């Protein structure tokens, strides 16, 4: 016979055991550094998650970038270039072992570079280099170019330029596991959201300070915020800007923000009748209230961008440039000078074409309010913006089928430390036809000439002159309308030594091997 008391006791015991299981589970893994970021491991393809495994300090490149943004040796001890600028020599670090115990050799580096060269993807930098041959020369690898190119070390900091052990690859060349040389090795990858890391005892450099790390990939911004507020994660690397204040107010965590080289801004089709005149682009630019958007949506008035390159790129940022102030009267005048007149419903019209276009709004938490703000602000000068849901794919599809007019880019100009690499992909004649995220159909012969002079310069003063011209052209032509410079936010729990967490403005690495526990 089961009494009512028995049932109640059993229910209570079940509830207590549930909670106890959770609490003991929590206690057991407290010494694992729990980190999360809004990125999942969708595949192991180099073009995809190589960036991620480099950030997790599993895989390394020949050359790296310090948190201060300077080039630094990693798997290459040093590098040099011949006087004619055609032969680059990378001395390969000795005593480096892959996580499977095999040794890093110059021959392995040569093979890896040959594989990178085969990529036909314009988002991978090494394949853009004018390489004619790669050879082993003792303990070094010699890269011979077809023409001088000053950014070779910069291009080898790119994510897909990680050097993996041969055992990482299947017979068909696809990556089946990540066997790198970094201070952490992969212990387990489970699904797309869970990676366990452990420190690699044979690491060539300073060993990781924390032995075990668990990474959780989380694409839902609210879930990230919940995890940070619950103290479930020690580091949130890339806390969405819109959630920064909410998480900071929860207590138990502190936020370290840094301004990145990533810009958020509108891009347009320069051949479309609505944007083919520089006056139209300028009108749209000054119709936007940057300060208001930066303050209300991004909670940071300093995020208002007045040029393409943020202060995170000090050599490329012009601190003397004034803010772009909103000026509706001037915007209307410019639009009128370009032949646009208000139609019966108030929307501008030119030869039967309405100044109206669709914009795809991505799922990032800041994008919906941003798009609504732009829609309202442009409406005040007679421009109609129709908001549609969709992220990169529909934008790219509209570019491919020729219907693209206007969209948003979240362009990182520090994919490699020198922003010229990104400018080359976006605006050099050889690649710009395939490039989208720097604007569509924008061509400027002066800009392309300056790009070529910059990369082939052998003297610093020549390079500086070309850089000044590139900055002036990008800030006057507005191929991307500068709107917001993104912050990179790291939420740090009080279990972690706040000062030990480097925050990387160029988004190259999480530098988790340098992180220490608070005690």
């Amino acid at each position, binding site marked *: *016979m*089961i*009494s*009512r008391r028995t*049932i109640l006791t059993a*229910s209570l015991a*079940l509830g207590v055991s*549930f*909670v106890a*299981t*959770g*609490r*003991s*589970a*929590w206690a*057991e*893994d407290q010494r694992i550094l729990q980190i*999360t970021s809004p*990125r999942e491991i*969708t*595949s*192991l*393809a180099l*073009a*995809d998650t190589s960036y991620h495994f480099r950030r997790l300090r599993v895989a390394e490149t020949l050359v790296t970038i310090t948190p201060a943004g300077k080039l630094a040796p990693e798997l290459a001890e040093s590098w040099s270039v011949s006087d004619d600028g055609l032969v680059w020599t990378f001395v390969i670090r000795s005593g480096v072992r892959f996580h499977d115990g095999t040794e890093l050799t110059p021959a392995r580096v040569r093979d890896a570079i040959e594989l990178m060269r085969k990529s*036909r*993807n*314009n*988002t991978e930098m090494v394949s853009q280099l004018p390489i004619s041959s790669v050879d082993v020369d003792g303990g070094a690898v010699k890269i011979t170019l077809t023409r001088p190119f000053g950014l070779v070390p910069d291009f080898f900091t790119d994510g897909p330029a990680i050097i993996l052990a041969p055992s990482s690859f299947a017979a068909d060349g*696809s990556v089946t596991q990540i066997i790198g040389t970094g201070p952490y090795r992969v212990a387990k990858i*489970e*699904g*797309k*959201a*869970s990676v*366990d890391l452990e420190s690699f005892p044979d690491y060539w450099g300073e060993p990781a300070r924390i032995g075990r790390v*668990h990474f*959780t990939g*989380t694409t*839902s911004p609210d*879930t990230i915020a*919940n*995890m940070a*507020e*619950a*103290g*479930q994660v020690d580091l949130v690397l890339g806390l969405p800007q819109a959630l920064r204040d909410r998480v900071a107010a*929860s207590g138990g965590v502190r936020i370290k923000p840094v301004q990145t080289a990533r810009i958020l801004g509108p891009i347009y089709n320069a051949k479309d009748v609505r944007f083919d005149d520089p006056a139209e682009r300028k009108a749209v630019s000054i119709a936007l209230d940057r300060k208001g958007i930066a303050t209300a949506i991004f909670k940071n008035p300093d995020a208002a961008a007045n040029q393409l390159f943020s202060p995170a790129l000090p050599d490329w940022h012009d601190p003397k440039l004034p803010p772009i102030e909103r000026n509706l009267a001037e915007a209307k005048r410019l639009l009128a000078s370009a032949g646009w007149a208000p139609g019966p419903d108030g929307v501008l019209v030119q030869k039967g074409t309405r100044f109206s276009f669709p914009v795809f709004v991505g799922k990032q938490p800041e994008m919906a309010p941003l798009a609504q703000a732009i829609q309202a602000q442009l409406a005040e000068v007679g421009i109609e913006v129709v908001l549609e849901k969709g*992220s*990169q*794919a*529909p934008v*790219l*599809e509209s*570019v*491919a089928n020729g219907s693209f007019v206007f969209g948003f880019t*979240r362009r990182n100009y520090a994919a490699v430390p020198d922003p010229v690499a990104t400018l080359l992909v976006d605006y050099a004649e050889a690649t710009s036809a*395939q*490039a*989208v995220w720097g604007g569509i159909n924008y061509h400027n012969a002066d800009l392309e000439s300056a790009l070529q002079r910059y990369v082939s310069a052998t003297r610093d003063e020549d390079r500086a002159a070309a850089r000044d011209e590139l900055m002036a052209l990008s800030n006057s032509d507005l191929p991307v309308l500068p709107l917001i410079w993104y912050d990179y936010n790291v939420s740090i729990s009080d279990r972690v030594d706040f000062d030990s967490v480097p925050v990387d403005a160029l988004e190259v690495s999480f530098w988790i091997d340098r992180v220490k526990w608070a005690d």
Partner: protein
Amino acid sequence: MRRLRGLGAVLIGHVLAAAGVAVAVATLAFVAVQMAPGDVAFRIAEARYGERISLQTVDQARAATGMDQNVMVQYLRWVESSLTGQLGRSMVSGRPVMPDVWRSFQTTSGVAVTGVGLALFMSLIIGFAVGMQQDRILDRAFLFASAILSSVPSFLIGIALITLFAITLRWLPAAGNNRPGYAILPSCTLALALLPDLSRVARNAVVRTLQDFYPTYGRIKGQSWPRIVFRHAFRPTLVPIVAYFGPLVAHTIGGLVVIDVLFNLDGVGTRLIDSVLAADIPMAMGAGLLIGVSVVAVNGISDIMVQLLDPRLSTARLWP
């Protein structure tokens, strides 16, 4: 013998139904991917490369995944690979579909079994507690409260539980499935979402059973209420509850997708939705197939249990 024959017929019916439903759901997933607006290759490339998507990566994705082939060829290719039990490779990750779908299924079934079990356990307690008090204040209060609670969406329940147990008390993880206690809040969310309806079914079953002849006969014989309830009324009360399991499981799948997203679980429902949005046809069909099979399996188990609980139903035709 007659009862065994009845059970066998039900079993065969469900095995045939499982095969049919699995193929139908997988085919629907394939059609859903094809019907979604936009070029499939762009969606695959976006899922695969994220913000590094370019026109070249789209071309690569199209060639690598065979999306440049005829739709029927793509479908038949999947049928061919599923006949070998492999379900093909994901167009996004490049990994074999089966291990990923199976791992997601395990995550989902862990949460679902715990949540449904908890809901069943609690609903039986509540059902008996209020059913034995029919039309009294406790019963009326329950009917009123359950009507209100059944309209609360599961994500609100989940947010409330996260706020209380994860953020405020910090007893349980807010999300993720790398901690042993990860399933508690998702399971409780599911249980609380199912509880109002399941408790009403239990309550109504108890009321009907107690109105039957044998409880009255037991009382005439001088048996105690607990003896009447647990020796005589418990089993017949279970019949409608177990029969309710079929629609309950179908209802649960929708709720589980919400729970997956809220708690960052790599469950099979999220995998199905993500793969349809990403046009990852093999993954969508694999996840759809597993969901279809599991719904039919639960229906089958439910039917068999009903027959075991009430042998009079063994001659009834439970499967159309």
